[in-house]
């Protein structure tokens, strides 16, 4: 690891203040104890049952996401700025979604090209003219943030549909507290365990007007074979809401009901962890067995609220991403606190030329990709891979965007050789309902392979506990 990456713990050899206490802790831990603690952590994860399966791999349903015990730390001041930037962006994204399914002012004002919005694959024509409760479309926004310097933070991408990983944020904290209670006595760390309460309140706050009494909330999961199933059941459990699959729900008249031991029970808010396409075979993919026939009719007539709203995917499209700073200015009249990473749109002639000429230095992504798949990391690719990818870009330019390879910050991690810096990013989870809520910190993802920049768990990345120090 060369010296050109910002090391969040050691800045030019000296320990940065947020990590002061951790240095002693790290030095005082002999290698033997470290492996013991690592094994203890794995055992705890297995006992809890936090396992994760990678799509397309089949086989072992009981893989663990690697957990690195070295926490990532923010000072209160660092976090306060991030907090403001995240909330600002979440507001802008929601204003955008409400607008493009309404009057489309931002397009009329020429601030974003119409085809990018109305021709977007994620734009749900069925939702045009529809206004969900409180005009909120994306209730849980996962804004992925990277850092290149002490005060240099960039938003890497927005996730407005079903961002996952919050269960790891919560369980990582639990496990750290269990294994290293002394650390929590010595450092004053902002708690995160109120997230489920905040989420529940957010969900309840967007119940439809037709709901009677306390709203009935349910979490709709594809089922226990889904790779994120643990998180679904974990959240449902902590919120005290029902975990349902499509087969447990049915539509009758203007409402949707759960099949219970006492007969049918009306549902008011559905937190769905299923993609739009699978929600309702009568409206979207007709072959979907995961959804509920007729659900969208109930949704459109205000009989149920769906979180996040179908159609929210336009806002986390990687091509639309380039216009988010514009959204902040247009809807909020403010300058973006968190900047975008410079982005070239291959759908644009000039940008395409630049990208093709500089592939070895760039990261190229599919506009609708996720999970780190369908990506090219220029500096790590062979000439053959670069040429193959160039061909893919030429065949469908509008499907690709490119960004410079960022020198992502590093945080120490416990690796085979001892302690070594590894690249990290941050996914905070911003809740938007009656109020905007944000739990301090979020999920820090770490690329465990030396030199690797890919942090996604589906490609072998790991996770860390994230601390925000209370001052």
């Amino acid at each position, binding site marked *: 690891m060369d010296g050109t990456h910002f090391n969040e713990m050691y800045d030019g050899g000296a320990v940065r203040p947020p990590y002061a206490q951790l240095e002693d802790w790290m030095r005082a831990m002999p290698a033997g104890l470290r492996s013991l603690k690592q094994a203890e952590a794995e055992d705890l994860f297995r006992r809890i049952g936090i396992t994760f399966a990678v799509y397309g791999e089949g086989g072992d349903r009981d893989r663990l996401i690697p957990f690195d015990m070295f926490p990532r730390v923010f000072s209160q001041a660092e976090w306060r700025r991030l907090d403001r930037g995240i909330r600002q962006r979440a507001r802008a994204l929601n204003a955008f979604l409400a607008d493009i399914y309404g009057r489309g002012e931002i397009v009329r004002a020429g601030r974003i090209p119409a085809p990018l919005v109305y021709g977007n694959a994620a734009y749900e024509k069925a939702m045009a003219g529809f206004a969900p409760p409180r005009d909120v479309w994306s209730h849980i926004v996962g804004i992925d943030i990277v850092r290149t310097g002490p005060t240099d933070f960039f938003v890497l991408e927005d996730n407005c549909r079903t961002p996952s990983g919050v269960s790891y944020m919560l369980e990582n904290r639990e496990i750290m507290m269990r294994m290293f209670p002394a650390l929590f006595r010595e450092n004053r760390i902002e708690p995160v365990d109120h997230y489920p309460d905040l989420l529940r309140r957010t969900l309840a706050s967007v119940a439809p007007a037709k709901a009677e009494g306390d709203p009935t909330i349910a979490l709709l999961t594809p089922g226990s074979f889904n790779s994120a199933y643990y998180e679904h*059941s*974990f959240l449902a*459990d902590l919120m005290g809401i029902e975990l*349902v699959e499509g087969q*447990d729900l049915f539509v009758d008249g203007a409402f949707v009901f*759960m099949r*219970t*031991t*006492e*007969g049918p029970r009306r549902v008011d808010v559905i937190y769905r962890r299923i993609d739009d396409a699978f929600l309702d075979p009568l409206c979207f993919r007709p072959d979907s067995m995961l959804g509920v026939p007729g659900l969208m009719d109930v949704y459109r007539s205000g009989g149920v609220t769906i979180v996040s709203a179908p159609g929210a995917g336009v806002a986390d499209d990687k091509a639309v991403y380039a216009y988010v700073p514009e959204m902040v200015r247009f809807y909020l009249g403010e300058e973006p606190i968190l900047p975008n990473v410079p982005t070239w749109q291959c759908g644009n002639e000039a940008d395409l030329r630049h990208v093709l000429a500089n592939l070895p230095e760039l990261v190229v992504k599919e506009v609708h990709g996720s999970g780190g798949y369908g990506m090219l990391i220029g500096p790590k690719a062979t000439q053959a891979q670069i040429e193959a990818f160039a061909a893919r870009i030429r065949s469908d330019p509008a499907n690709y965007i490119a960004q410079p390879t960022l020198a992502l910050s590093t945080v120490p991690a416990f690796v085979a050789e001892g302690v070594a810096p590894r690249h990290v990013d941050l996914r905070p989870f911003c809740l938007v309902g009656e109020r905007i809520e944000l739990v301090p910190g979020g999920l820090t993802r770490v690329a465990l392979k030396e030199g690797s920049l890919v942090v996604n768990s589906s490609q072998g990345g790991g996770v860390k506990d994230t601390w925000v120090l209370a001052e």
Partner: protein
Amino acid sequence: MLSRTAENLFWIGRYLERAETMTRLLAVGARIALIPQVGEGFRNEWDSLLQASGTAAGFRRKYGEAVQRNIESYLFFDRDNPSSVASCFERARENGRIVRTALSAQVWDALNGAFQDLHALERLPRSEIDIARLVDWTTRHAALAKGAIDSTLLRNDGWDFLHLGFCLERADNTARLIDVKYYVLLPRADFVGSGLDSYQWQTLLRAFSAHRAFHWAYGGEISAAKVAHFLILNPQCPRSLITSVEEANLHLERLAAAYGAETRAQERARELLAELAGTNVDRIFDEGLHGFLSRFIASTADLAQTVGDCYLTGQAP
């Protein structure tokens, strides 16, 4: 609660109980196999146990000869046998995984722990695993799960469905085990009351871990009538048919109270209990033990089906 959740809990109860029964079968078989072969009837005692557990056809397809070693494998480890101890614990744990929200951390721990421990057990060389060890293994893990259920689970409808699974499976399995002995093991009518007969009854009692309890409750000589009374009609015997049916009634009454509504299930359960409470051993032997037990097994199955119809389909009852 969700019907599907209730159904999963119900089946966790059934699988755990079934796992215990399978292990008891193994224990019974092992002891009976120690008796010298006398007279006609089943040459191979194991065969009868496979019949009793409904696994005979599957076993024969896979292994052919009913040898102790193969039967141990089939009844304990084999995933091709849906009723093997391993299959039962796997399914119970899988159901537990699906309905995590309805379980306490300790119950999940017990189910998941058994599952992880099973893998460790399977890695041991077979020569190190004898039946006594398998029986211990099962009783320990089943006890952990039941203990966790009774001391940590919220006693809501979910708890009642779990217990309904336990007692309906227990009623069914106990009846089948008694049936094995009387209908299947006994070679000739004139063996009744002989030393052979007595030994086999004792073996059956040991299989229920009720050998000492029986002698405490009845003293004196062992006899078919006394054992039948103990295992069918004595409410003090934890595994008797009447105890299981009483428990089913209790849990169904709690559900009726919780939901504020009675269903056909409560009615059926009461009928079944009334029949048992109103009969005695002489009447049972007059009818014929096998006939009585077959009828009972059918009634229990019917009650389970009714519970399903009333609560587990999600339609208005």
